[in-house]
């Protein structure tokens, strides 16, 4: 399919998707950027402030900075957990065991649940007074821990719950990647006397790299847009320990009536993700993984 002449076919194939995409994503995003240049209030006409909203966010707004640093912590933990967890579960699910189909479905099941349901369920489990986890702890004689009221624990659980809800999907991708590794490689290695550990490091991991790249890109981007799970689980608390960017944007727009500021914050978030994506893409390109 590599021709010198510019082909028409790919554009035709792209049109339906691009049409919907431009009208419902690009156009609104453009409008959003336009809005970010204004100081808005429900009581007076919007006032053009240029980059004023951006400067305000970066220089003056402590909540914005907090949301940004919380988000970075979250994404690191989340993506790290996703990579390790999905490889671990992928390998487990790749073993020849009885009820393999059942186990594969079981690990995938939480993926089907909506973020609202996931967060509500875990809120019930982790609740200081009514929660199942503390009930279990006290029945075993130890003291309950106010899981969502201690910053470190709260951070931990937001990551844990998000992993719980999404690991199943990434594990399946890894499982698929594992299955595409030719068995002969392992057999050859086995004959050569390589033990499991060496097989893992010298066969599994290198051949799994392209798959892991997919996991990395998708989970990073999905991590940055985290909202529902955390918002319902902790509400950003205790204090602002788990306040994330989208919640900051939501608060600015719908609780503080500052739509211009919210638009500026979301544009900055977009910029961060976009740059990260480009970097990951170039890295991937370099390794011929993407």
């Amino acid at each position, binding site marked *: 399919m590599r021709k010198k002449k510019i082909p028409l076919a790919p554009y035709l*194939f792209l049109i339906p*998707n691009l049409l919907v995409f431009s009208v419902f994503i690009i156009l609104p995003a453009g409008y959003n950027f336009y809005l970010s240049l204004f100081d808005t209030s429900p009581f007076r006409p919007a006032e053009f402030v240029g980059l004023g909203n951006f400067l305000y966010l970066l220089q003056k707004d402590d909540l914005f900075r907090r949301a940004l640093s919380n988000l970075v912590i979250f994404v690191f933990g989340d993506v790290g957990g996703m990579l390790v967890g999905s490889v671990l579960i992928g390998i487990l699910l790749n073993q020849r*065991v009885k009820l393999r189909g059942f186990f*594969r479905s079981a690990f995938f099941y939480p993926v*089907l649940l909506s973020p609202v349901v996931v967060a509500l369920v*875990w809120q019930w489990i982790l609740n200081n007074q009514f929660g199942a986890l503390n*009930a279990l702890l006290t029945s075993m004689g130890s003291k309950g821990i106010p899981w969502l009221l201690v910053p470190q624990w709260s951070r931990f659980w937001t990551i844990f719950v998000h992993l719980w809800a999404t690991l199943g999907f990434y594990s399946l*991708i890894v499982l698929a990647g594992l299955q595409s590794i030719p*068995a002969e490689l392992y057999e050859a290695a086995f004959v050569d006397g390589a033990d499991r550990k060496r097989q893992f490091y010298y066969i599994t991991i290198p051949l799994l790299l392209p798959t892991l790249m997919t996991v990395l890109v998708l989970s990073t981007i999905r991590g940055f847009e985290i909202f529902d799970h955390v918002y319902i689980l902790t509400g950003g608390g205790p204090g602002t320990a788990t306040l994330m960017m989208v919640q900051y944007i939501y608060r600015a727009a719908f609780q503080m009536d500052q739509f211009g500021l919210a638009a500026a914050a979301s544009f900055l978030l*977009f910029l961060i993700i976009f740059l990260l994506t480009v970097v990951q893409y170039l890295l991937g390109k370099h390794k011929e993984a993407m």
Partner: protein
Amino acid sequence: MRNGSLKLDAMSSFLVYFLLCLGAALMFFPVLWVVLSSFKGLEEIYRIPPTFFPKQWIFTNYTGALKQFPFLLYLWNSVFVTLTATALTLLINSMAAFALSKYHFPGRTVIFLVMLGTLMIPLQVIMLPVYLVIAKLGLANTLWGIIIPPAATPTGVFILRQYMLTISDELIDAAKIDGARDFRIYAQIILPLTTPALAVLTVFSIMWRWNDFLWPLIVINQEKYFTIQLALARFRGELVVDWHYVLAMTVMSILPITLVFAFLQRYLVQGIASTGLKG
């Protein structure tokens, strides 16, 4: 010996089963608790310490919640939206992915990167302009207004493109020599080979559309177009939440998708896994 799963010795076999069972329990227990709690009275839901099995099985949470709206109609709306949107998503995403993976043309990288970059724009942020467009097109308060805007999901294009990249170009070149045109190559060669990735996207799309809440809430004005998720949400007030109804309706809303999954999991989970989905 296939697929690198060597026979396990007794010790590691025990470990594998142990971890698998532990994981499965961790995945199922929370949901089970919700299901059981949906049969508890309001008073028992609030009890400290919480109970696991209902002391008294109560079905009024279900009958009471169901009496408040036409459940079957909302179920139909949800099913219609989910299926149509998924079909549309699969079609346009796979076409775009085909173009982005199998052709070299000016603008390819830019289009792909822009799509990836917008993967994360949260709906809360662009809702107003999206809705303005929907209203201009006369799609406000229609099911199509729910279906069309999220159809061009960049995630879908990304997953499909990554998979199509692994399909050998030789197949296409061979077909070309046989005189196949672009669309036939797409429909008869690429699509069948992309089945596992399409299966993944199907599950994803069904799940997204079924659980969609905020967007349908904005688009739909009349209760006759309500979906299940909207019916579920109405029990959340400003100051008081009817937890017993919320729990019952939560179970009702995950029940259909669980059943669908139970029937399809053999094809989906096994299919995805056995054919291999590369990054």
